[in-house]
């Protein structure tokens, strides 16, 4: 009965959609584009330039976590054309059939992407996403607080020497990057024993922590309330590094990890022609460079680097980590069935 209702609702919706797109086709190309993106990752200047060139009005909504975005898309009828999932979220969205496969014949300029992002493990052949910006998970520390000691390894996060002055990101997958790599495993492990060992390390680490915080950890490090914190690279971290000469961001020698947020087309997007136009626009090197110039983030577009006005950012590890560090870092991918081991472990860590 329920299935029947769902099916009939689906048929009605499909009819409504097809009639809409039918009239849309008659009236010419779309004049609107609905974008659902991370806050501040696609600078307003990019949207403005797009609207100016194409006349297509862009409506932007922001989300603050992949999980929020996924649940909104999963609820159905979101009306979004372009969404901006992170690498593991692409896998999850594909698994839930919430993304349209990309028609490569409609995309121009995909060769501009940096080699690391041309054929990534989370989306082989870039069937569903076009990488836009990327960053790293590493260590943020305050040299004034550590007494000038350089921090280069995850082991410092587990060192009793810094008891009460350590912060971890309040995020399961992020915490396990440190927990797994400090034990010599890959951050994308799906092995039950390895994850159990990481859980053990994280439980042992808990009494040493000032706390789990993924909101204002940068300020905590800058003020010296915390000496060392696990940290996400990106705009806010880069700003703190720039403002305070004592604060440094490094990728740990164990590797750290890489995130990448890309552009995808939502299933049933009402303005697909405009969505492809938008993706092509963002693949242009001079537009992609605006992610760095106006957004302070690293662009996945290699050809964009020469258009970056502040060339110093290309050597700021909190924005552009060096090529060899990037090669050494793991992509965090969807753990699939192993998610259970992570969740059980993380629940135990939090309750310990």
């Amino acid at each position, binding site marked *: 009965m329920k299935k029947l209702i769902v099916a009939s609702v689906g048929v009605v919706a499909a009819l409504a959609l097809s009639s809409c797109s039918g009239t849309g086709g008659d009236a010419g190309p779309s004049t609107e584009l609905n974008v659902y993106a991370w806050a501040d990752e696609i600078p307003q200047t990019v949207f403005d330039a797009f609207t100016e060139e194409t006349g297509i009005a862009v409506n932007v909504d922001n989300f603050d976590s992949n999980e929020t975005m996924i*649940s909104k898309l999963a609820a159905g009828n979101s009306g979004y054309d372009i969404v901006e999932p992170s690498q593991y979220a692409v896998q*999850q969205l594909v698994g839930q059939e919430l993304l349209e496969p990309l028609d490569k014949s409609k995309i121009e300029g995909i060769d501009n992407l940096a080699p690391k992002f041309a054929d990534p493990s989370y989306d082989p052949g870039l069937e569903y996403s076009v990488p836009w910006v990327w960053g790293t998970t590493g260590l943020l520390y305050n040299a004034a607080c550590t007494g000038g000691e350089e921090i280069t390894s995850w082991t410092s996060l587990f060192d009793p020497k810094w008891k009460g002055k350590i912060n971890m990101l309040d995020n399961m997958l992020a915490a396990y990057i440190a927990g797994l790599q400090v034990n010599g495993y890959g951050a994308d492990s799906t092995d039950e024993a390895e994850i159990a060992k990481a859980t053990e390390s994280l439980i042992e680490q808990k009494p040493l922590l000032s706390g789990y915080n993924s909101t204002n950890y940068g300020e905590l490090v800058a003020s010296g*309330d915390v000496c060392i914190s696990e940290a996400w690279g990106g705009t806010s971290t880069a700003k703190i590094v720039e403002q305070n000469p004592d604060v440094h961001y490094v990728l740990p020698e164990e590797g750290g990890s890489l995130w990448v947020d890309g552009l995808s087309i939502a299933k049933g997007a009402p303005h697909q022609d405009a969505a492809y136009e938008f993706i092509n626009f963002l693949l242009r090197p001079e537009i992609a460079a605006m992610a760095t110039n106006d957004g302070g983030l690293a662009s996945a577009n290699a050809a964009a680097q020469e258009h970056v006005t502040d060339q110093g950012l290309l050597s700021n590890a909190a924005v552009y980590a060096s090529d060899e560090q990037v090669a050494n870092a793991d992509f965090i991918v969807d753990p699939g069935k192993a998610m259970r081991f992570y969740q059980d472990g993380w629940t135990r860590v939090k*309750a310990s």
Partner: protein
Amino acid sequence: MTATTRAIHLGRQEKPKRGSLLLLIPGIASVVLLGVLPLFIVARNSFAVADDYGGITDGLTLENYTKLLDPVYSKTLLFSLGLGLLNTVVCLVIGYLTSYYIVSRPTNRQGFLLLLVIIPFWTDFLVRTFAWITILGSGGPIAGILGIFGIAGFSVIPSNLAVILGLLYSFLPTAIFPIYASMRSIDPSLKEAATDLGASWWGVHRRVILPLSSPGILGAALLTFIPTMGVFVIPVLLGGGKDPLVGNLIVTLYTEFRNQPMGAAVSMVLLVLMLASMALVGLALKRSSTKRSSTKKTEA
């Protein structure tokens, strides 16, 4: 509240007319649509099976509840209950004293004092919590005062003390208003009479004002206890996130863990606990009112 009691009284006096039932339809429809229906969906989901991507499949299982018997969950639940109770008690004591102070001011000043209580709440909740980070943090005034006495580098954040302060600050007004409302209706001459008859300050409160304002106090207890259980920002920002509350657990289950059925199960457990606490308060109210009317009768 008054509208409902009036409706109940009306109902006792005469049968509602068909016209008035028609008028009720929009209200009932919105309550069913926005309140009851979502609740039923959550209840249904709590018995469902999650797929790997956080979706809900059609299955029917008790596993989401049996898993909660694991000590890791009961620990979080007990900690939240404890913190909720502690916060309620602290809010009630301070709320009672504040309300008493406001009620004993001249009537024309009371409105202004209540306004002072509510003004901070014109600002967003998150902004106020960040303000507490500044006040209690290492660069803040408290650390500055302690610095004068030679205690350097002291920060109240992160600690459970900071969490308790943050909770108290957030829920104090919800305790003050119901208590104030019930205290205001107490005839001031009762207090004078009690004092004339030799009751001490403590005696006046214990035997006169406290019993008479008990409906407000019990209401305030519910209004602070129930939302405290659902708080999830304060423990992270002020407490360092090392001791999660039930609210944090639900957020984690729904978002990070993509386990809606289990999140729904925890929500249902919380709901049952809250209904139970409301039932307890209801019973207490009933008992105190029958007791009062029976003592009145014996006195008469």
